[in-house]
């Protein structure tokens, strides 16, 4: 069994009298330690997949297995525990707590986790060793996203979910972030899933899942993923 398995997962939103199928019979697998990219245009349903996988939203049908457990069967509390211990999130807009310093923003996560890494060390790893005590407002976008990644990583999660992590960043910075994510995946064996509309990222992933209109159109494996540095877009 793969680390992540989606079995005929669907999600319907009822908008008034119209039912919208955000995800329609999604079937795919991701192995542990892979860097997977879910790619598709806006509204293709990739965020819904992420929400369901992250335990933030429930599926209307089908089953989702993570590490052999069916998370779609979890109750609210088990879902929180799942998010707490197994999942790290990287948001498009970083979502740092403005009132906390970089270090504290990482600490907020490590506090929750059963087996956290040292916040300072993780920040060091992401290249922010000098800026531990800066507030988000004192950091650039890329730096903020790094703090966000550090926050996710410090929990020592098995699964790192990234929602358009470069969406609010310029190219260079975005590239650095992607590099960081790839490095994390390779060095720590964390399963990293990146959601993006940017097909240019595809080469760096171990696995690429294409979506369109709520359906999985293609699941491709890159046997030889490229380094981010080789990427051009």
């Amino acid at each position, binding site marked *: 069994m793969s680390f992540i398995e989606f079995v005929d997962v669907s999600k319907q939103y009822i908008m008034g009298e119209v039912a919208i199928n955000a995800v329609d019979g999604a079937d795919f697998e991701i192995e542990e330690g892979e860097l997977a990219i879910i790619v598709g245009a806006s509204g293709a349903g990739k965020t819904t997949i992420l929400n369901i996988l992250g335990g933030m939203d429930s599926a209307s049908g089908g089953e989702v297995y993570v590490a052999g457990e069916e998370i779609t069967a979890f109750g609210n509390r088990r879902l929180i525990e799942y*998010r707490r211990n197994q999942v790290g999130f990287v948001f498009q807009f970083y979502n740092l707590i403005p009132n*906390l310093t970089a270090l504290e923003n990482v600490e907020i996560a490590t506090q929750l986790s059963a087996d956290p890494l040292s916040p300072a060390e993780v920040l060091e790893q992401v290249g922010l060793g000098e800026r531990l005590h800066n507030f988000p*407002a004192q950091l650039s976008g890329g730096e903020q996203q790094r703090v966000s990644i550090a926050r996710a990583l410090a929990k020592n999660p098995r699964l790192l979910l990234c929602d358009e992590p470069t969406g609010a960043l310029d190219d260079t910075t975005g590239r650095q972030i992607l590099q960081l994510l790839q490095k994390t995946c390779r060095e720590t064996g964390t399963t990293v899933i990146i959601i993006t509309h940017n097909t240019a990222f595809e080469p760096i992933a171990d696995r690429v899942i294409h979506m369109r209109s709520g359906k999985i159109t293609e699941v491709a494996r890159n046997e030889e993923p490229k380094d981010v540095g080789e990427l051009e877009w």
Partner: protein
Amino acid sequence: MTKALFRDTLRAMRKTLSRFISIVIIVALGVGFFAGLKAVSPTMKAAAQSFYKKHMLADIVVQSTVYFDEKDVEAVRGIPGVESVTLSRSIDGVFFKPDGKPEQSMSGTAYVTRVIGYDFKQPVGSGSARRNQLQLVKGRFPERPDECVVSAYANKMEPQHYVIGQKLRICGDFEDIRDTVKSEIYTVVGVVYTPEFIAMELGASKAGGGELSGYIYIPDDAFVTEYYTTMYIGVEDASEYAAYTAGYKDLVRRVTDKLEIAGPVIAAQRAQRMTDYLIPLIEDGRKELEQGKADLEELRKAIANYAPQYDAGKRQMQEAPAKYQEQLDKYNANKAKYDEAYEIVVQHPGAWEEYQEGVNQIERAENSYNVASAAVAAGKSALNVANKALESGEDARIKNAMSILALYFPLEAADQTIEGLRARVAEAQAQLDEQEAALAEAKAEINAGKAKLAQNKALIAQLEEFNRASKELTAAKAALDKAWAEIQDAPDKLTRGEESIADMQAREITAARDVANGERKLRRAENHLIALDNAQWIILDRDEFAGYTSYGNISDNMEQFALIFPALFFLVALLMTLTTMTRMVGDERTQLGVLKAAGYSSGAILFKYLFYAFTAGLLGCVIGLALGFTIIPMMIFKAYQILYLIPEMTPGFFWDTAALGFGAALGVTVVTTVFSVMWTLRHRPAQLMRPKAPKAGKRIFLEWFPFLWKRLGFNGKVTMRNLVRNKIRFLMTFAGILSCTALLLTGFGIGNSIGTMLDKQFGADSVMRFDGQALLQAPLRKAEAPALLNKIFRDERIASVMPVYMKKMYGGSPSFDHQLDVTIVVAQDKDRIPDFAALSDEKTGKPIPLTDEGCIIGGKTAELLGLKVGDTITIQSAGPEKAEIKVAGIVRNYVYHYIYMTPQVYERGFGVKEAAFNVVLIRLAPALTRLDKGSDAEINQVKETRTALARDLGDTAEVITLVYNQSIIDNVGRMLDIMRSVIVVVFTGAAGALAFVVLYNLNNINIYERTRELATIKVLGFYDGEADMFIYRENIITTILGIGAGLAAGIPIHGFVIKAAEIESMMFVRTLAMPNFLASAIITVIFAVAINLLMHKRIKEINMVEALKSVE
């Protein structure tokens, strides 16, 4: 404003409805309380004014030591400025209960009722000259001299006395009320409104304990007196000025000044007329009194005489059974004899008759014998005469002898010769012999009868015995019957005896009282006559009407609140508008940029927010004014209707207050809006269109103390930084909580202040240590005191007693604008006063001794009159007594104004030769003092014993009635409870509303602003509780700080409010109790928790997906 912009504004309102409503509510609260409390005074005064106007309340009241008559009216009418003059007469009497005991007043003295004359037939209305007109509420006006109408207020408050159909008995105070009015008993036929008495406290009276407790109106012609006691004056144009205004006071004062000048002259003229009237009256009175004294003496003698008689009767009754026994024995003995004799009589039937026959026969025979023997004797002497004549042979003698013989013997006629005579003598001799033979025969017959009788003598004796026994038995029976009747009769006779003694004794008491009254009356009349030399007027303004001034004062008091409440609410409103508008502008920052870029001027853009704020402020204002002008004055008016009789109030609209409220409300909302919008608009459009940089986190002061900061933990750090970051919001929450707690503390504190006041005054270990007052029938002189106390008050139920002179009077000082109702207490024994009244220093509680230096007054008395130790207080009664006394001490006292002094101070101050006491203060035996401890049965036992003691004392001739302090506690307590609940409800309600509006709105904004943060931490894996705490922790800290500050702020606010709420006759307990603090804190916490629980739902509903959305 363009149409699009307008629509956009409306939409904004709808979208942020809860915020909009919050502003409306807080503005409404602020404006409402401000307008409402400001409106209380003018609205209440207007209600009073319309009531006074309707009833034509007099402007000036004149009383005179020499009373008034119609001539005075003419004189006064001539004074410029006087519009109308009305005379009125009244008499104060003691009110009696149906059981014949005097009723008691609320403060425990005899219940004095004023009987006021009123001409029910005269025209009324504004055209009438009559002042103080009555207006019928129900029933009808009196038509007969023994009918009356009562006040609607009394009808409501004392239904046990003043209802239609009730018969009221009002007796004179040491005088026969029928000297003044035609009847002693009045039937209530109607209920009226009267402007003369609008308060519960009716003022002073010369009768009873000096306190007036009730009043009735009777037809004026029911008075038999020819003078009037009071003159009511209407001042020209006075009705054009509202009561209580300076203009009114000035106008009236001008006329009063003229009266002051004219008064002595008019009074002196009246005094002359009065002298002519009084002198014969006094003469009659003196005679009557002499007669009364004589009658009393006689009655006492009769009682003394009757006593031995009664004792004899009693003895007789005790002896009657023995006497009866004696008679019964006698009868029985006789009966035995009789029975014996009867036996014999029965054995010899006819014997008695035979015997009787024999006795008759003998009698008859004896009669014949006697006749015959007399005839024989006469015949013999006649024969002797004849024989002598024969011997002499003289013709004359023969002739004589012949005629004598013819008298005794029937003889044949013969010659008057000697032969003839001889023949006749022989004839006579023969007849005589015949007669003698018959005589002998009769004699024999008698003897034969006697011999026969003698044969039955024994039997006859027995028969005679029977006859006698029979007679004796009859007599014995009669005697026995008589003795029996006596036994039967004796108890009745004794009862009659007892009754007549009791009757005589009762008559003696009445007569003694009458004599005492008569003496008093005479003394009074004589004093009056003396006073005529010093005839004077007492000129008063409306202050004289019970409640007029205090009503004005209490309505003014409410205005004090008009500052506190609204200030708090406006402060909160300001902060809230600021937060809301800042938030709103922040939300629409981009839109602002777009509009600005599109060429709208700052003004046009500002207009939208101004419109929003203005609409909210205006709406709040309108709601606040509408509710404030109606509900608050009405509520306060309704509460005060317990104390004042002003039948109705119409809410008013006050432009000045409304304008101030509008100004403040719109100022607050508009200014804050302009400020927050302009702050944002100062940026250029491009800047605005970019998302606003999240507010930078900052190091806070605390972080410079690492040893503290490190300990805080991560959550603590966030909380502290958040608090500092959002200073306005923090301040606002803080202010909201502070206000809430302070208001609650004030409310509970007032409850405490009012609630514990009576206990501190009358309860255990309180100011008043005595348990009751016995009102004496007659003033008690010092010399008489020990005897009376021994006679009446030596009782195991009484622990100790002290005679005092207690009298309701008026207290005044130069700095006080009207008269204060005070009660003077002249204590017989100054050293024992602490046993009956704790005279202790207000602050330290140290005892203050009562000395001959001066009087001791209560703290509130001193405060009102502006007196300090060493100042002089003016005390005067409703009568002529007046004194100026030095204040020697100021003590703790809560209810009424008591002025304590020694007899020496009293005598010196009032110029009285010797103080006499009218009340005996009583401390009960310890077992009878507690009414709150023990089982129900024990309490009832104590109550019964107390009632029995009151009855026993009241039954004596010396005591009118015994009143327990408990009854004051019950009466006053009821009134205070109402007042307390109104105030507590107002404060708690206001506090709750404030807390809710502020906290709800604030938390709402807080959560709204931090939605992203909350969504993020949820994604990170915060449990629900942890997410809540992320918000709550700030609230908890703010709440704790707010409560602490609120408790601190509540203390002075309570102090201020309690002083404003106080009524003249009471000083509330001005301190707060621990439970007040606890309750305020706990309730604030409950409010906060309730709102946080509401917020929990909001937090829970936050969708984690929000975290993924882009920043707007």
